[in-house]
């Protein structure tokens, strides 16, 4: 075993380092005030984690095809004749394969730069030890998700990621809106999570009945290097479909796909750094990662695939349309995230797991960048309202450059990162249209979204960075460029946004996108399509999508560019439409109604039943006993003759029982 492969054994250290940071910062708390309240400690540990992660990823690039799986038994029941024949185990283990290596790069890199950026961005806040501790815990959890070799561990860290997100969204917990957004995020993702759990159970049933040793192995994705997928082939396709739908539900909750998308824009109540790390680059991508794993290891039926394509395709345009009207800079980017995640889901659904992962990787870079740049702006002007900003390019050159790089990448302008991956998705899905004509509407939605994407992100750019210096007098005047701890991360990510797509043309890196899974029975020969190849038809498609993107930029410039405030269309339908979009198609209101009125009314009604029907019955017993006692009291007359009458009545009752009742009972019950 050479050095690079042996590195994989130490993969568990990658999540463990931030966990150490969590423990240290959590334990010492404010005593670390000299170290930026633990911030530098968090940066240090995440840097260590990044270095190790990169080394492991490089090892994976240099030694492809060898996956190392390290396990620790977490929960085990020994074999028994009446229970599990081979025993039952739940394990914690790390599996380093190309997918997790790629995710390692994304998570540790973005994690590190965001941690560094936080030093500057969060400097003025209080409660920083809590912030850095939970952010470190988040990194641990996210890396746990990435490295998990089995479904249970995946789910475990998946939940932990969710709770870290909950705490970070609610970081400014004294703000009612932040507390409310945190709650919403937790509960909505929880809906997806329990369905995901149901999916895990179904896979368990399928695999454990096909191979009893699977229960003992601890829900592993792979056995040796072979996916367990073949086990699922023989089973009831309905069951497999349902499991896939449940998995999709879990992914939709985490990745904010329709209809569980409402929480992500509200999650922007958290600090911008959190938005960049968790709600753009890593956690929300975990849903896509789950679908990738499902597609590669667990298997989807064609019904599942259609459902995934439908959800992903529809979400792209659904979220992008809302992004076009919102005026909060972070919310626009958040809708954009939802929309871009839709692309990834679409790709995975169409059978191109690695293409989806490719977009995940580029998106993580440029979306984190956009958030950091937005954060830099917010840091400078202390508002998030686009219509109060303006002309910031002159005062914040680095930030403007970074944002522009991100915007180009997002719009899909070559050679920026986003172009390659988005184009790859579109052409991949297009290639499936022949055999799957039912994908057509979703393909068209995705294509139309290219235009909307370019439009809304450049609307943001023009409103914030171009035009006259200030629409809100006095706001932008104090704006100045951010300190180096914030600039360096932005520049790193800007670099990545530019070159991320080109990197896949370097062969060692490309191996991460072409995993050699030695499974003998991969269900379909997956067309991996990474890096993208360009036969003639694809060139035309690429030209079309680039044209759409450029068109979007031009429309944005025509409406908002050069400091112009285009007169809004004032007709009633337009106003109605804008209102609908601003109200997010009233989905949020519907959810609030379900939670606040629907469920809560049921709960109140149940409470009423509990108090007055169930407990009322109990009290009724009590009261009737009291009443009977009141009446019984009256027979205590004190008159001797009456007592004698009771005694004799009792005596006669004994006679009746002994002479008649008991023999009858004995004869009925047959001896005793």
């Amino acid at each position: 075993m050479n050095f690079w492969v042996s590195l994989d054994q130490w993969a568990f250290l990658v999540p463990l380092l931030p966990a150490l940071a969590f423990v240290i910062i959590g334990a010492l708390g404010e005593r670390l005030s000299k170290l930026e309240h633990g911030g530098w400690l968090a940066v240090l540990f995440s840097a260590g984690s990044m270095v190790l992660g990169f080394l492991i990823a490089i090892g994976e690039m240099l030694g492809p095809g060898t996956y190392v799986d390290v396990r620790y038994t977490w929960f085990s029941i020994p074999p028994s004749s009446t229970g599990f024949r081979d025993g039952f185990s739940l394990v914690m283990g790390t599996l380093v394969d190309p997918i997790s290596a790629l995710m390692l790069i994304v998570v540790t890199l973005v994690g590190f730069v965001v941690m560094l950026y936080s030093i500057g961005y969060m400097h003025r806040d209080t409660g920083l030890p809590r912030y850095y501790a939970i952010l470190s815990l988040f990194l641990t959890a996210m890396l746990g998700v990435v490295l998990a070799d089995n479904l249970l561990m995946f789910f475990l860290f998946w939940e932990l990621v969710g709770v870290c997100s909950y705490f970070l969204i609610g970081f400014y917990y004294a703000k009612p809106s932040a507390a409310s957004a945190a709650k919403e995020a937790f509960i909505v993702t929880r809906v997806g999570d329990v369905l995901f759990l149901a999916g895990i159970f179904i896979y368990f049933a399928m695999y454990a009945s096909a191979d009893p040793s699977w229960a003992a192995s601890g829900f592993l994705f792979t056995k040796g290097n072979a996916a367990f997928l073949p086990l699922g082939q023989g089973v009831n396709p309905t069951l497999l479909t349902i499991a896939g739908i449940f998995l999709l539900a879990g992914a939709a909750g985490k990745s904010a796909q329709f209809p569980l998308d409402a929480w992500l824009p509200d999650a922007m109540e958290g600090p911008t750094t959190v938005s960049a790390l968790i709600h753009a680059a890593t956690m929300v991508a975990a849903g896509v990662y789950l679908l990738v794993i499902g597609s590669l290891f667990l298997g989807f039926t064609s019904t599942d695939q259609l459902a995934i394509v439908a959800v992903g395709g529809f979400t792209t345009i659904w979220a992008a349309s809302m992004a076009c009207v919102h005026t909060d800079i972070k919310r626009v980017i958040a809708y954009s995230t939802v929309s871009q995640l839709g692309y990834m889901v679409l790709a995975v659904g169409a059978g191109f797991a690695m293409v989806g992962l490719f977009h995940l990787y580029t998106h993580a870079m440029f979306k984190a960048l956009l958030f950091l740049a937005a954060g830099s702006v917010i840091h400078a002007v202390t508002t998030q309202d686009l219509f109060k900003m303006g002309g910031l390019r002159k005062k914040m050159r680095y930030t403007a450059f970074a944002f522009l790089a991100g915007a180009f990448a997002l719009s899909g302008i070559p050679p920026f990162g986003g172009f390659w991956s988005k184009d790859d998705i579109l052409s991949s899905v297009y290639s499936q249209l022949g055999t799957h004509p039912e994908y057509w509407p979703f393909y068209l939605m995705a294509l139309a979204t290219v235009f909307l994407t370019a439009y809304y992100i450049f609307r943001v750019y023009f409103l914030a960075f171009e035009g006259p210096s200030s629409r809100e007098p006095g706001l932008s005047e104090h704006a100045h460029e951010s300190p180096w701890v914030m600039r360096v991360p932005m520049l790193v990510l800007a670099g990545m946004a530019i070159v991320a797509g080109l990197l896949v043309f370097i062969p060692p890196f490309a191996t991460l996108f072409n995993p050699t899974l030695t499974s003998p029975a991969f269900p379909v020969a997956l067309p991996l399509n990474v890096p993208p190849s360009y036969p003639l038809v694809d060139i035309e498609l690429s030209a079309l999508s680039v044209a759409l993107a450029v068109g979007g930029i031009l429309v944005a410039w025509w409406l908002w560019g050069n400091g112009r405030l285009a007169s809004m269309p004032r007709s009633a339908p337009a106003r109605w439409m804008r209102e609908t979009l601003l109200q997010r198609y009233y989905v949020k209101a519907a959810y609030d109604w379900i939670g606040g009125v629907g469920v809560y009314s049921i709960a109140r009604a149940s409470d009423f039943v509990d108090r007055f029907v169930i407990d009322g019955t109990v009290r009724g017993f009590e009261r009737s006993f009291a009443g009977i006692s009141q009446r019984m009291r009256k027979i205590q007359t004190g008159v001797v003759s009456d007592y004698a009458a009771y005694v004799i009545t009792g005596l006669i009752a004994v006679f009746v029982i002994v002479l008649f009742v008991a023999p009858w009972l004995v004869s009925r019950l047959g001896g005793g």
Partner: protein
Amino acid sequence: MSVPWISITLASLVVGTVATFLAGRSARWVALATSIVFLIEIGLMFWGYSWPGLLNGIPQFAYSETHAWISIGWLNINYTVGVDGISLVLILLTGILQIATVLYSWKEEKRPNAWFGLVLLTCLGCFGVFVALDILFFFLFWEAVLVPMFFIIGYWGGPNRRYAAIKFFVYTHVASVVMLVGLLALAFYSHAASLDFSSVYAAEPALAGVVPAFLFVALFFGFGVKFPIVPFHTWLPDAHVEAPTGGSVLLAGLLLKLGGYGLIRWGIEVIPNGFHTDQPILFVIAFVSIVWGSVLSLSQRDLKRMVAYSSINHMGIVLLAIALNSELGLVAALFLMFAHGIVSALLFMTAGSTHDIFRTRDIPSIGGAASVTPRLATAMMIGSLASLGLPALISFPAEFTALLATWQALAYWVLIPLIVLVVTAGFYIWMMQRLLFGPTKGIPNSVHDIASLEVVAMGILIAVTVLFGVLPNLLVHWIVMSPVGVWPL
């Protein structure tokens, strides 16, 4: 076998309890010493434990002792004690909760000797229930738990304490009597040689016809009220609301576990035939309890009431897992009982401290507690998250395996408890949003965060929560050294 650890432990607890009653002002120190000795003894019990396995198909016990006690003709009542993995984890729970309660209520000023004595007596009773292997002996301890709890609620409780204490006592006592009738009928109908567990176990197959089913219903009623099962649960919220914090901790942490333990030891193990007949009833009740407890928690304003109803929900999952009749289910049920004991104790401590600090437990009338009492808020958050099944905390492995076992046995019915998990998350998260977050309101002028001894008490529970959440095998290792994996269910 040489050292009669159980008798030694019982004796030390009895001596400690009596000494606490007599100790006057220094009762708390005696109680603490007793608790520490108890924990050490538990540790030694774990140290030397190995499960003897089955003998002629009858499960055996470690550290078992039998001494003739009452012998009238054919009726043999013995002092028989012993432990296996099932009781061992619950004994550990008893030890942990005992020391945590003693530390939490360290500052009790109202007749401290009686208070600490009653706390120790409750734990003594629970320990007795967990080790007793004779029907009468078991029942003796079972009832012995009721009395101190009655006084704890009735003397140290809230404004409506007399009603709650009497309701608690009458309710559970009626159930106990039904259970005793069932247990004695079991022994007599099966013509067991004695009232010992092993002879009743061996004699049970002699029962014919519908008799085992009826016996099981009688036992289940007795154990179920302790659980508590819907619709026999209404004593629980009242008792919790009125009980002092230490009382709530013991009530939720230990007393509810007696029901689960009894159901496993004297119900399922001893009357499998009756259990098989009645299994559907158990399922229905379990599902109803799960849904009902959770939905009702959502509508509660009183923090303690909310936690009390969530106990109904969790114990419903325990009942479900027990009723599944599978090895995995039983392991999960025992783990979940342990987990719930720790977590609900923690939550009741935080609820009690909330009341001490803010003079109210009404959730909507307090806000932003996290910014004035961060330590309390942290403990409450950890407790809530553990209770809603967050991974890496203690409930998760238990709930995961319980639901997995449910899926194995009942397939899509598992969706009911799964969806309820969302509601459970909902009410905890909503409580935290209202009580801990948001702008401050309802904060009295002089606010102090929880005192250091309370921190220690909660810290013990939090440490246990995290330890077994991260390394559940530490507990499962002991649970499986018991008949759960081998008896022919």
